[in-house]
């Protein structure tokens, strides 16, 4: 209920502001809605949202898989940690824009370059989080698994993974937030479809209703995915904790 009121206040504020500054600079809500409907009818909205979502999914999966594996390895093996650390610091401090531009220069304006660039931006934080999680693994439980001769796979699945799960969830959450932002930049700079590309087009044409139409649709998709996928996952992995009380 409170949320609804809050959204209504936002809409009203927007409307009043558009009356004050003039519809050319800030179109009123109905104009943006009309732009959304037009794009939806032509199918372009869904095509572009789909292209962006596909890029997000692929780069997210890539970064999470690699990040978890590398983070686990660096957390377990001293040598790997010492060798990997300088790379990690470099990647952490490299601006996203630099990675994207370099990827396009080296690999061309291709899908692979875009997805790789997005994944590389997310990778170091996933590695750091998972390394942290691996370092926090309880050695007492490792010993238990050793004494009772758990096979490797079983020990990983039943002893290690449940301890890492909260860290995986944290990395997923922060990583997704990062990817939502970066994917648009990558599309703006080097792709010919996707939400970022359309926003670039709207910017060049000064078509503000179109710009807002894509921005808001995208934000809505992000919101739905966060609440429908990410939050339930977080609850699920820490379910056994809630029974502690």
């Amino acid at each position, binding site marked *: 209920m409170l949320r609804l009121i809050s959204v209504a206040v936002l809409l009203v504020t927007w409307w009043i502001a558009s009356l004050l500054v003039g519809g050319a600079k800030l179109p009123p809500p109905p104009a943006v809605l009309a732009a959304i409907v037009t794009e939806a009818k032509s199918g372009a909205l869904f095509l572009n949202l789909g292209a962006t979502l596909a890029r997000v999914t692929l780069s997210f999966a890539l970064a999470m898989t690699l990040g978890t594996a590398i983070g686990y390895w660096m957390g377990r093996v001293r040598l790997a940690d010492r060798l990997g650390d300088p790379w990690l610091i470099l990647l952490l401090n490299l601006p996203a824009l630099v990675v994207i531009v370099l990827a396009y220069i080296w690999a061309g304006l291709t899908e692979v370059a875009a997805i790789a660039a997005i994944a590389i931006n997310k990778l170091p934080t996933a590695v750091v989080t998972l390394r942290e999680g691996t370092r926090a693994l309880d050695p007492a439980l490792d010993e238990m698994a050793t*004494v009772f001769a758990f096979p490797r796979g079983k020990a990983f699945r039943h002893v290690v993974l*449940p301890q890492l799960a909260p860290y995986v969830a944290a990395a997923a959450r922060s990583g997704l937030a990062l990817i939502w932002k970066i994917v648009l930049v990558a599309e703006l700079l080097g792709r010919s479809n996707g939400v970022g590309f359309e926003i670039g087009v709207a910017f060049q044409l000064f078509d503000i209703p179109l710009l807002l139409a894509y921005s808001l649709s995208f934000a809505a998709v992000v919101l739905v995915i966060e609440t429908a996928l990410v939050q339930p996952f977080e609850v699920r992995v820490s379910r056994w904790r809630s029974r502690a009380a």
Partner: protein
Amino acid sequence: MQLEAVITGKAYRNAAGEQHDVLDKVELSLRSGEVGVLFGPSGCGKSTLLRILSGLDRDYQGHVSRPSQARIGMVFQEPRLLPWRSVEDNIRLAAPGVDEAKLSALFDVLELSAHRSHFPSELSLGLARRVALARALAVEPDFLILDEPLASLDDALAARLRQQIATLIEGRTMLTLLVTHNLDDAVRLGDRLFLLSARPARLLRTHSIDRPRSARSEADIRAIRTDLARLDLPNR
């Protein structure tokens, strides 16, 4: 099956590189069917010794021989259950071969039947210990290791668990090694007592109790305790 250990030293090194001796000279041997008791003051190195004997710690001076295929069931000083698995799953994960009959029998003896589907965080320390004990026995061990299984339980609970341990040990021929710093528990459960000095632990003497556990009367137990007390162990 037989356990032979000749340990001549074990030290931990701290971050500053200083050596911290935990074990001195400890020699012990134990045969299948026997219950050995490591008895010594708190902090003398008993848990450290168990980690060496179980093969968890290979960084020591000396030699331990134990059949390599020996199945080990261990009750650590803390229960070390997986918090995200139920009591039953904790046991089945460690002992995939355990059948329902065996499991029920264990739960019966240890009075755990009502707690099968509980999670470790829902258990008291006494219950968690019993689950750890059930897990160790469910693997049908050749070598059972119990690290202070009766510590920090109130007297009545400790006595009951001691009785349960005695029953379970009687039910299977295996090598059992138990750690305690309670002389009464040592005398009631053990066949061979290994008396250890304060840290760094040195084997002071070995004391065999010939009378079978079940035949030991209160008078026998008192007599053995008096005998051992005369050795004035704490001051050696």
